[in-house]
């Protein structure tokens, strides 16, 4: 039994690794297909042919395609992740300096939206058809319908410009104090979590309604289980099973949605880095950014699959 589980987890890890390897191939091919040349962009339109040829050779863009791929993969292992022509630094250094902001933003937005979304969903399900339910339904529909950039602008208008409580742009690291950090991060976190709260609330509500009148809930009631224990031990735990996939998929989507949020608040994270890398045709930097995000998503999915084994015993076999 135990050995079987370990083998299953190992198999899943191996699958994830294969996914990442395939991804590097696809990303690399994509890099070849995207029009634009990082060297020309870097040198500007006045560059001479000799200069272009020199730098193209220097950064290895004249090598055969397969060799460029091998060099890229090699650079993963020596820790440089390639060289960014536009920023003239190793990609790993650039990403390392940026990823903290993105992870802080996404992690907090994720935590906030899971807690609030699930809580609202439970409240709506338990008060089905009442005013509370209707209000939550309307708000969550609105939350999905309102575009992120619009919410961002409105929040900046109210809290940064009118009230002046929060800065309208930029990131303050936590090392500069909890207060300033919080004021800087609270608006972006709100913007990023808004659609997720709505989606979690809706999904939790319908998932709870599915289990709320199941026979085993009746059994639990007839055992004398108190209402609170019925909700958390019997209903919510069963409702979570289908929810888990949605929640983690949402984490992946948030890693992507952060591009918009970071640009609205001009936060120095991965999202704005990606936009910059596209603008300067720094394809090496661009694919590395995507790869890093993809690895996070793959790992998140892997964690869910392993968690399922513990949450839903039926998936063990």
């Amino acid at each position, binding site marked *: 039994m135990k050995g079987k589980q370990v083998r299953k987890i190992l198999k899943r890890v191996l699958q994830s690794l294969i996914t990442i390897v395939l991804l590097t191939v696809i990303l690399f091919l994509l890099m070849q297909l995207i029009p634009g040349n990082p060297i020309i962009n870097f040198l500007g339109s006045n560059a001479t042919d000799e200069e272009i040829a020199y730098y193209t050779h220097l950064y290895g863009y004249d090598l055969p395609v397969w060799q460029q791929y091998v060099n890229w993969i090699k650079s993963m292992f020596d820790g440089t992740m390639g060289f960014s022509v536009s920023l003239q630094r190793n990609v790993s250094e650039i990403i390392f300096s940026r990823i903290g902001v993105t992870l802080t933003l996404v992690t907090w937005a994720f935590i906030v939206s899971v807690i609030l979304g699930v809580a609202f969903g439970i409240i709506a399900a338990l008060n089905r058809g009442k005013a509370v339910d209707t209000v939550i339904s309307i708000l969550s529909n609105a939350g999905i319908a309102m575009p992120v950039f619009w919410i961002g602008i409105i929040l900046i208008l109210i809290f940064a410009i009118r009230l002046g409580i929060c800065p309208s742009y930029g990131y303050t690291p936590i090392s500069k104090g909890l207060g300033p950090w919080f004021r800087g991060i609270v608006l972006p976190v709100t913007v990023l979590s808004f659609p997720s709260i709505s989606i979690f609330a809706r999904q939790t509500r319908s998932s709870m309604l599915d289990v709320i*009148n*199941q*026979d*085993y809930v*009746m*059994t*639990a*009631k*007839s*055992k*004398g*289980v*108190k*209402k609170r224990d019925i909700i958390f*031990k*019997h209903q919510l*735990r*069963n409702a979570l*099973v289908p929810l888990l996939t949605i929640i983690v998929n949402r984490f992946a989507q948030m890693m992507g949605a952060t591009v918009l949020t970071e640009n609205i608040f001009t936060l120095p994270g991965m999202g704005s880095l990606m936009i910059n890398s596209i603008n300067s045709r720094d394809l090496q930097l661009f694919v590395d950014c995507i790869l890093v995000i993809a690895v996070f998503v793959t790992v998140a999915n892997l964690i869910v699959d392993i968690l399922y084994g513990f*949450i*839903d*015993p*039926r998936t063990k076999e």
Partner: protein
Amino acid sequence: MSEKVLEIKNLSVEYNTEIATIFAVNGLDMDLDAGETLGLVGETGAGKTTTAKAIMRILPEKVGEITSGNIVVDGKDVYAISEAEMCNIRGKVVSMVFQDPMSALNPIMTVGDQIKEVIRIHEKKLTKEQIDKKVDEMMELVGIPANRKVEYPHEFSGGMKQRIVIAIALACEPKLILADEPTTALDVTIQAQMLALIKDLQRRLGTAMLLITHDFGVVAQICEKVAVMYAGEIIEYGPVEKIFDHENLHPYTIGLFRSIPNLKVKTARLNAIDGMMPDPSVKLHGCHFAPRCKYASERCKADQKMIETEPGHFIRCCRFDKEQGGSANE
């Protein structure tokens, strides 16, 4: 007169749905002595399960409504106490076995934990070790090796799941079990095992049982008394031997017996009772069965009383009412 564990007086239950009001139970009276087994028989929709849920006070919230009457379980009026007090009664004084063992257990809790839960709620004085020991005892009592308590419901067969449901229901030695068609979802050989198990445990623990079923065979096997329910009313009530002698019965009960196929005679078609159950969204007056009854007369339009035709045998039919010139006994 022995101690009553269940007394229901004039119980009426309605379901208020958006489409219509359903009159599920209409003025039902029922008593159950300690240790006694009563079979509650009737077709689907007669109000049997509603009655059981009303006793447990687990009717669907807001939809199910008690419009009249009261239910007294072990001396306590179920609808006069708080929800917290009711939680102490459920599982401890009265417990319920549901129809479908496939869905009656929480799929993501081990069966041991599910038995443990009910013991932990009601036997607060027991230590952890004593609770674990009790779980093992209950598993063995229903014939499942105690080392399987760490397994999940999907690892058991249907019959074994029902054994676990029964173990949960009996874990705190309740005074009354409501068994809602406990064998319907099981195949015939397992049915017999399960009935023998229930009967044996009931005798050992001295528990009274309300057995809801539509299977007269089951009733004959383990019940002492029978109540036949039709359209929300009990229309016949009596000791099992009086009902099964097939003499002097309510026309509906006769119809029920006639519809049981006789294995000794070759039958092409089953003898069904003509007509359909009345629409439960219409409030009925007079005899509920009259529209399908071949003896129906003008007198059936009046509300019917329970008439004691012989000691302990009651029938809700005016044909047995001698004062009104009933003719069925002659």
